[in-house]
């Protein structure tokens, strides 16, 4: 054995042992995600309103509370992925009073829960509690993915409820360019019978949603991610980050049947919001009624909600103060990727801090 190889042997052994430990970790454990301290202040059925423990003194804190609303088919812990890479942690450090509405996991008894329930029963009640708890008559709202869609519906149906600013992240609102939206092709009525799926399962199963999303980029999702892990198995920092994201991705939840049906029929196929024909519980949704300050954030590489699904919405809302923010990144990477803390979060903070006083 050459002398240089003999000298490298201990280093190689240590590297192999790190790789073995990391492999064991990702295959046998779940990463601890959603660690920021918080308290439950309200519950209704499966929905829970949390308030994150502030880390900044009262006098330095923004007086207007911020409510985060995430999508219905994944857990909201992506907003608080892990210490050092958590949007919630970042907001707290910047002095926001942060609340999170977690929709919970629907069971068979929630199969009839529709968008009207989420927008007109759950959301207004959670907001009422937030206002009474914080003592503020105004609030800001940040919605992500379907959470952004629900927030938009709320902002247009209840414009006088104290909503000061609205931030939409990768919001699927406009389905005009049907051919450019991969999920729209997948759920086209020629190939996808939504009623048959709901007859078979009641709710839209988490596994089917996950499979559909992964099939939009099959090689990257089924092979590429694992190859990236394999390439960096000796790098604990990269492995921990991968592990946290994988834990969140593999923890999908079903979507309430009636809400899913509306989402497919009224949005993907009917494009009713943009056409101005959408009604929720008999109330017409008019985007011109959205009067809150609006920041619309779009991921340029988003393949789940491509930019064409939300960039046109700015012209349709009634807000006088509105801005479109195009950022590099995908649907999730935009806010939870390694570059989010340097790009997306500071830009959102810069916009929001001016509107939180």
């Amino acid at each position, binding site marked *: 054995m050459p002398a240089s190889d003999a000298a490298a042997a201990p280093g190689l052994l240590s590297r192999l042992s790190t790789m073995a430990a990391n492999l064991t970790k990702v295959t046998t454990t779940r990463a601890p995600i959603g660690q920021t301290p918080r308290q439950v202040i309200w519950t209704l059925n499966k929905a829970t309103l949390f308030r994150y423990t502030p880390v900044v003194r009262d006098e330095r804190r923004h007086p207007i509370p911020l409510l985060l609303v995430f999508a219905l088919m994944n857990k909201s812990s992506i907003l608080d992925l892990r210490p050092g890479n958590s949007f919630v942690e970042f907001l707290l450090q910047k002095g926001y009073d942060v609340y999170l509405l977690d929709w919970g996991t629907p*069971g*068979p008894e929630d199969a009839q829960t529709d968008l009207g329930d989420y927008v007109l029963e759950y959301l207004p009640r959670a907001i009422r509690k937030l206002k009474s708890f914080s003592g503020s008559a105004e609030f800001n709202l940040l919605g992500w993915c379907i959470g952004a869609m629900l927030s938009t519906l709320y902002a247009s149906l209840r414009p006088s409820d104290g909503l000061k600013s609205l931030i939409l992240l990768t919001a699927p609102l406009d389905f005009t360019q049907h051919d450019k939206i991969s999920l729209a092709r997948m759920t086209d009525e020629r*190939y996808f*019978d939504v009623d048959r799926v709901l007859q*078979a399962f009641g709710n839209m199963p988490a596994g089917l949603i996950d499979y559909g999303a992964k099939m939009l980029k099959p090689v990257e999702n089924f092979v590429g991610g694992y190859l990236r892990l394999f*390439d960096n198995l000796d790098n604990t920092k990269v492995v921990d980050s991968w592990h946290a994201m994988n834990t969140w991705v593999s923890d999908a939840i079903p979507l309430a049947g009636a809400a899913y049906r509306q989402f497919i029929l009224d949005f993907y196929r009917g494009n009713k919001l943009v056409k101005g024909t959408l009604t929720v519980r008999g109330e017409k949704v008019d985007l011109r009624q959205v009067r809150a300050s609006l920041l619309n954030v779009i991921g340029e590489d988003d393949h789940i909600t491509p930019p064409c699904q939300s960039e046109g919405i700015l012209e349709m809302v009634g807000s006088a103060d509105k801005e479109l923010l195009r950022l590099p990144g995908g649907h999730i990477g935009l806010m939870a990727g390694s570059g989010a803390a340097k790009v997306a979060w500071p830009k959102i903070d810069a916009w929001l801090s001016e509107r939180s006083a």
Partner: protein
Amino acid sequence: MSSDSSKGFFERMRGVRDSAMEDLAKLTLAWTSSDSYQAINAAISRPALLAAGIFRKATESAMADLLARLNMPSREDVLALSQRLTRIEMVLDDLGAGMDQFHRGSSRQQRPAAREREGNGDRRQAAGPPAKEG
């Protein structure tokens, strides 16, 4: 020297693998975005969903019969009960919010009265608990 050359070899292999993966990703994406893929997917899933629906209906009706014989509530009863509980929870939430508003309103009404008493020099009474009536 030997470790450098083996490292170079692995780097080259990785490059070949990555470019092959990229090509495969483009090919697969073109295939999964095509109408023919969606049609095949639908042809496979349609009978599976039909069978799952029939199976679900059959097991639910068999289970409902069994539960009725055992004098136990059916799945439908339990689901309906859960939905009623959610409605009750909503009513309680509204009542709780109404009570909160009432308390805030009454404490706002008490504050000016207390300030008025403070202005008259009766500080002890203003700082203390509200006096009982009657």
